[in-house]
C-alpha cells in the first residue's frame, strides 16, 4: 500500500469530523440552555436557597458523614450474608432428588414472595413486626431487623441471578465433568459454580450498587443513619440542603462501584468473545 489514504479512510475521517461537530454543537446548546434557563425560572431563587445553601451544607456535612458510617456497616454485614443465603437458595432450587422437594418448594416460594414485596414494605413488616413478638431487649434492635430485611429481600434477587449463572454454564461442561467420574456435587463446585460466578459478576455488581442505596431504607424503622440524620438536619435548619449533601455522599460510594461494574462487564465481554461454548 502507498501512503495515500484509502477511500474508506477518507470516508471515515469525514464522518468522524462531522459527528464531532454535531456533538460539540449539541453539548453547547444543552449546557447554555441549562445555565441560562434554570436561573431564569421563577422559582430558582427559592430552590437555590432551599437546596444549595452553602452554610447549611458545611454545617451538616460532618454529621452526615458520621451517620453514613452506619450505612456502611449495615452494607458490610449484609453483603456476605446475602451471598451465602442466595447461594443456598439457588442451589436448593437446583436440587433434583425427591426427598428434597420441600426444600425446592420453599426456595421457589421464598424467591417469589420476597421479590414480589417492595423492600420498603418489608422493612416496616419485619422491622416493626418481629420485635413486637416480645424479644429480649438486645434482640429488639431495629438495626438487626433492618439488616435482616435487606438480607432476605436481596437474597431473593441474588439467588435468581446465581441460578441464571448456573444455567448459563453449558450442559457439555457438566457432561465432561461427569465423564471423568466426578459426582454431581464435585461437578457443581469445581466446574459449574466457578464459571457461573464469572458470568454473573456484572449483574452482581449492579445489585450491590442497588443495595448501597437501599440501606437508607433501614432509617424508616429508627436507626440514625445518613437519611434520618439528613431529615433531622432538614428540620433543624428548615432547609433541604442536607438531602443534597447526603446524595453527594451516596454518589461518592456508588459511582466508583458503578464504574467497576461496567468495567467488569466490558472485561467479561472481551473474554467470552474468545470462548463460546467451552
Amino acid at each position, binding site marked *: 500500500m502507498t501512503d495515500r489514504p484509502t477511500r474508506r479512510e477518507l470516508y471515515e475521517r469525514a464522518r468522524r469530523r462531522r459527528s464531532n461537530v454535531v456533538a460539540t454543537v449539541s453539548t453547547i446548546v444543552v449546557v447554555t440552555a441549562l445555565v441560562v434557563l434554570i436561573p431564569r425560572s421563577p422559582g430558582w431563587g427559592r430552590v437555590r436557597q432551599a437546596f444549595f445553601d452553602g452554610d447549611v451544607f458545611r454545617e451538616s456535612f460532618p454529621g452526615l458523614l458520621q451517620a453514613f458510617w452506619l450505612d456502611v456497616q449495615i452494607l458490610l454485614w449484609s453483603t456476605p450474608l446475602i451471598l451465602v443465603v442466595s447461594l443456598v437458595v439457588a442451589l436448593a432450587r437446583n436440587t433434583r432428588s425427591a426427598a428434597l422437594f420441600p426444600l425446592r418448594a420453599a426456595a421457589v416460594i421464598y424467591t417469589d414472595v420476597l421479590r414480589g414485596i417492595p423492600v420498603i414494605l418489608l422493612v416496616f413488616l419485619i422491622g416493626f413486626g418481629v420485635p413486637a413478638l416480645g424479644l429480649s431487649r438486645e434482640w429488639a434492635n431495629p438495626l438487626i431487623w433492618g439488616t435482616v430485611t435487606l438480607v432476605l429481600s436481596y437474597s431473593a434477587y441474588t439467588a435468581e441471578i446465581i441460578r441464571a449463572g448456573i444455567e448459563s454454564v453449558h450442559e*457439555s*461442561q457438566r*457432561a*465432561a*465433568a*461427569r*465423564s*471423568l*467420574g*466426578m*459426582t454431581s456435587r*464435585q461437578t457443581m463446585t*469445581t*466446574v459449574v459454580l*466457578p*464459571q457461573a460466578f*464469572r458470568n454473573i459478576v456484572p449483574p452482581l455488581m449492579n445489585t450491590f450498587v442497588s443495595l448501597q442505596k437501599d440501606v437508607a431504607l433501614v432509617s424508616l424503622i429508627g436507626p440514625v443513619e445518613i437519611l434520618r440524620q439528613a431529615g433531622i438536619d432538614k428540620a433543624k435548619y428548615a432547609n433541604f440542603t442536607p438531602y443534597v449533601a447526603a446524595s453527594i455522599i451516596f454518589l461518592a460510594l456508588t459511582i466508583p462501584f458503578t464504574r467497576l461494574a461496567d468495567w467488569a462487564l466490558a472485561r467479561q465481554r472481551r473474554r467470552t468473545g*474468545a*470462548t463460546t*461454548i*467451552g
Partner: protein
Amino acid sequence: MSGDRTSSDGASSPLKVQLRAVYKAFGGTTVLDGIDLDVAEGNVITLIGASGSGKSTLLRCVNLLEPVDDGEVLLDGVDIAEPGLDPDPVRRRIGMVFQSFNLFPHMSVTDNVAVGPRKVLGVPKQVARSNAVTMLTRLGLAARADAYPDQLSGGQQQRVAIARSLAMNPEVMLLDEITSALDPELVGEVLDVVRGLKQDGMTMLIATHEMAFAREISDRVCFLHQGRILEEGPPAQIFEAPNEARTQEFLQRVIDAGRL
C-alpha cells in the same frame, strides 16, 4: 480377536464391553433400537453412519451419560446399565472425548488434566499436576501447560481433552467425532494421538466421519442406521464389499462428498 491382554483388575476378560439389546428413546423417538455389540480388550471399534443414526447416543450410553432404557451394558462382564446403580465409579474407568472438546475454560491446561485425578481419585495436588505435565509432554503439549483453553488451537484443545481423559487411566476410551469440529489441517495431529493409543493397546470405541481413518485404525467397523447396527465386520470388508445396500449407499455418499 486379540483378547489376550490382561485387564488391570487381574481378571483376564476377552470382552471388555458388551452391549445386549440396548434400547434408548428420547421422547417418542427411538434412537437406539436393540444394539448388540462386543468390544474385546485392546480392540478398536469404529461406528460409522449418517448423522442421527445413533453413534453418539451409543457412546453416551456406554459411560452412562445417558441412562439406557432397556437392555444391558456389561463392563468386564458386570451390568452397569442396572437402573439405580451409582454411575460415578463406572465413569471413572471409562474415558470420553467430545466433539466440542468441552475443556474447562476457567482452568489452565495443566489443571484441566489434573482435576480428574485430584477430585475423583484424591491424588495430591502437586502429584496430580506433575503427572498432568508428564501426560501433556507425551502428547506434545508441554509448551502449552500454563495456557488457558481459549488460547489454544482446536487441535491442541482436543489433544488436551484426550490428555484429560487419559489422566484417569481409563480402561476404555470413547471418542465421539473428535475431529468433526476441527479445521482440516488440524485433524492429523489429533488422529496421530489416537494411533498412539492403539499402539499402547487401549480399548477404544470411536464414532467418526473420517472414513480413511476408520479403515486404517479399526479392528472392526459397525455401520449404524436408524438406531441399529446394520452391518459389522473388518474394515476391508465393510469398505470394499459391504453386504447391505444401505451401507453401500452411505459409503457412496461419502465418496461423492470426497471424504473417502
